[in-house]
């Protein structure tokens, strides 16, 4: 019997560390980030260390994830200081997954060796595309060649767990062009890959660029084709899909990100970081300066603290769980929440089951790929 992710509901804590600096602002990105500034960075790292000392409560944790922004803009010694502080604050064992998000143009063999030495054991490169024309349209600072070079450097530095991010549905991208990037990724042979659809948020500068350049994005049917064909190639290359947009070589699933989909718990450190713990959600102050001053003054960094109702916890567990290939284990839900998913929602799911967009084998609800493409239609069923 399959005991893959989704079968085990995580209870060990994940630690997310937000690094809000970038060397340039990408035209499609609306994450919490700002331009790199050395002085600000030093104060920020010091604030982070203070927050870690305050938050650490000795509980078990098995992942640290440096996300951004561009975390690879930090110096290796700074990353090391954060990891060490986490090790003091929480109970990490030797098997902790420590991921650093990196942009290809920010790394050198020396820096990579430094990160490795600091304890980072997983790298996640924001490659996005292996076509230079697409990278230019996205205002990215690296080229396809630079991405390949950064990948080789990471391998040389001893990283044996590397993930690459690719985006489909880019302006002007046709199905065949998307598949070129997928093939280029497969040729490098990373251990993990994320295949995302670009979402262009309403006021993104990319929208203006698209209007000026008269660029368009592929129609809905082509995007579906990109998704299915891209994943098909990953299958053939020996990767296993475990979540709507993530594939990995056996044993290389992102342990940290799985906590988000398996009703797990995580603590977010740094500005704008989100936490979910003991049925409560909160978010740190988004603005970098606000966050630093709050830490320096000793006032709370958390805002928007919300105790989730039993129904909300259940609904969130249900809709996030459906993202996994392993599916949503109705037995575990019954155990945790005392709710029979099938009895409560079965009727509303019937039309999806009839169309083969969802399957139910008596123990798990699963989305086949065609179903994953329209996952939100089914997830909305859970929302009260």
């Amino acid at each position, binding site marked *: 019997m399959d005991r893959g992710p989704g079968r085990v509901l995580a209870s060990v804590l*994940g630690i997310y560390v937000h690094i809000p600096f970038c060397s340039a602002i990408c035209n499609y990105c609306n994450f919490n980030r700002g331009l790199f500034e050395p002085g600000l960075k030093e104060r920020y790292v010091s604030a982070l260390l203070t927050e870690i000392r305050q938050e650490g409560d000795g509980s078990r944790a098995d992942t640290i994830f440096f996300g951004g922004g561009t975390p690879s803009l930090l110096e290796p010694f700074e990353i090391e200081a954060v990891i060490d502080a986490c090790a003091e604050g929480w109970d990490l064992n030797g098997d902790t997954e420590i991921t650093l998000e990196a942009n290809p143009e920010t790394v050198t063999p020396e820096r990579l060796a430094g990160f490795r030495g600091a304890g980072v054991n997983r790298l996640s490169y924001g490659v996005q595309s292996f076509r230079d024309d697409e990278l230019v349209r996205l205002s990215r600072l690296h080229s396809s060649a630079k991405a390949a070079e950064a990948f080789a450097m990471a391998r040389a530095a001893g990283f044996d767990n590397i993930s690459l991010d690719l985006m489909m549905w880019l302006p002007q991208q046709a199905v065949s062009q998307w598949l070129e990037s997928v093939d280029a990724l497969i040729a490098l042979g990373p251990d993990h890959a994320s*295949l995302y659809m670009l*979402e262009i948020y309403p006021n993104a500068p990319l929208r203006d660029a698209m209007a000026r350049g008269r660029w368009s994005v592929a129609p809905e049917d082509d995007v579906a084709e990109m*998704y299915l064909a891209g994943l098909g190639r990953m299958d053939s290359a020996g990767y296993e899909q475990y979540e709507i*947009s993530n594939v990995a070589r056996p044993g290389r699933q992102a342990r940290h990100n799985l906590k988000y989909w398996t009703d797990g718990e995580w603590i977010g450190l740094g500005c704008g970081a989100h936490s979910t713990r003991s049925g409560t*959600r909160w978010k740190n102050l988004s603005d970098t300066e606000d966050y630093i001053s709050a830490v320096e003054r000793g006032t709370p960094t958390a805002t928007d603290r919300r105790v989730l109702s039993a129904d909300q916890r259940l609904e969130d567990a249900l809709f996030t769980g459906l993202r996994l290939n392993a599916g949503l284990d109705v037995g575990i839900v019954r155990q945790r929440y005392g709710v029979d998913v099938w009895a409560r929602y079965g009727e509303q799911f019937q039309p999806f089951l009839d169309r083969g*967009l969802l399957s139910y084998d008596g123990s798990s609800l699963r989305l086949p790929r065609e179903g994953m493409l329209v996952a939100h*239609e089914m997830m909305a069923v859970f929302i009260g």
Partner: protein
Amino acid sequence: MDQAFIRNFSIIAHIDHGKSTLADRFLELTGALQAREMEAQVLDAMDLERERGITIKAHPVRLNYTAKDGRQYVLNLIDTPGHVDFSYEVTRSLAACEGALLLVDAAQGVEAQTLANAYLAVENNLEIIPIINKIDLPSAQPDECKRQIEDIIGLDSSDALLASAKEGTGIAEILEAVIDRFHPPAGDAEAPLKALIFDSWYDAYRGVVIVVRVIDGVVRPKMKIRLMALGQDYEVDQLGVFSPKAIPVTELGVGEVGFIVANIKRVSDAKIGDTITEIARPAQEAFPGFTELKPMVFAGLYPVEGHQYAELREALDKLRLNDASFFYEPETSVALGFGFRCGFLGLLHMEIVQERLEREYDMDLVTTAPGVLYRVTTTDGVVQEIDSPAKLPDAGRITKLEEPVISAMILTPSSHVGPILQLCQDKRGVQKKLEYLKSDRVLITYELPFNEVVMDFYDRLKTISRGYASLDYHVTDYWESPLVKMDILVNGEPVDALSIIVHRDAAYERGRALAAKMRELIPRQMFEIAIQASIGNRIIARESVKAMRKNVLAKCYGGDISRKRKLLEKQKEGKKRMKRVGNVEIPQEAFLAVLKLGTD
């Protein structure tokens, strides 16, 4: 008061030709309002206006004016609605006047609305003083305007006055002309009371407030009165005039204009055009011209969410308190559930009612395509009027089907004549007249089936003339026509709320266009959706909405589950705003798709 010193008049003008600015100047000049309090006062009136809803006009204002002859006059300025939907109300307001100021924008010239209302004034034997307004504009052409007034309307414009209401020039001259050239009211002060109702509205504190012009006799508080058309009796509670604030008076004598409060509960009990008389000494005859207002345009109004039905009924009840010209009765649709068939004076009236329901009563509505009142003769010889496609008998039982026809006056720059004639032909019109009023200005008169006009005529006229053509119309007749009922089927099921009555020859084209429009408006869903147009059992058009392929967002940034959740909630909310017909979710705007054909 001595009727020799009263003048009752109105201002006839096209929208934006400066009517309200001129009225404000009159108020200022006569001291009815201090310049400083002006803004606030006018705004108050607008609030009241909004509460009153559909009449879209201000209440009459009494101006005390000391003329150059040193005498004190009372000038009653009576407003008229500016839209064709309310032309009956215009005639009643004009009947309360002896004169009208015909206000024409010096740069724009005469428009269809001005023309139509000027004709009404002439028919009511009013004296007319032409005023050329906005002479301060660089593009002003006063001589050209005068020529148009003579050529188009047929009025002597040699003594037209020039003014700029905006700059305040020529205002006193206008008031002097009102005194010199308009007659004082005729009428017999000793005769039995006869007062014409030309406006009424509902006031939450006082009940119905009716606005009257005393034709003969006098009305006083405590007088027992009768509304002649309905034969209902009341006792006068309050009398007053608007100056522009409401001021109580102890009597309204012959020729005077003012308001009466008499414990009347509903505006439908105080019909515009009715005559008030004294029970003790009744008038022999009512003032002529009273007509029961009949709704002309019909549509279904449904709550988006079924449980709002009771709320909608309550909202309609309240609206009707204030608007007697609007009609409704319960209607059931297979597709939309429980709702109401509503009748309106015209399209603008329909829009106003809809907007008030949405804004003031917070209703979420689905409106079906507007239609008109058809006359159907069935094989058993019975003639009935039907206001909804659903009520049309089977084709086999119909021996005669008639539709209302309007006489439409379109005034346009000559450069747009070609496309406008084409539009009128497309809409099955019959040309009656085409006059070049001058080399670049044309008056087109057409007979048009009214149902074609309520569909999308006005929008298209405005589009093809770039907004320059103006339209006025009134229903004149019924035509026998080969009309058919066209149904729209969604996944094989007819959606009753989408059925329309259409001319047989236009059915194919309309069916194809409507099916194509529906394809655009219905979002992709989990399965393919077939959209068909049919007449009887014959399918005349077919479109399909392909099954949805993608609805998923991938990124989950740093564990921000709330954001994902919000997205799903938003999606769910969007679905709630659609109507589920069978297993298909249909957005509200799709039910009005027929109005949007050929406009994009």
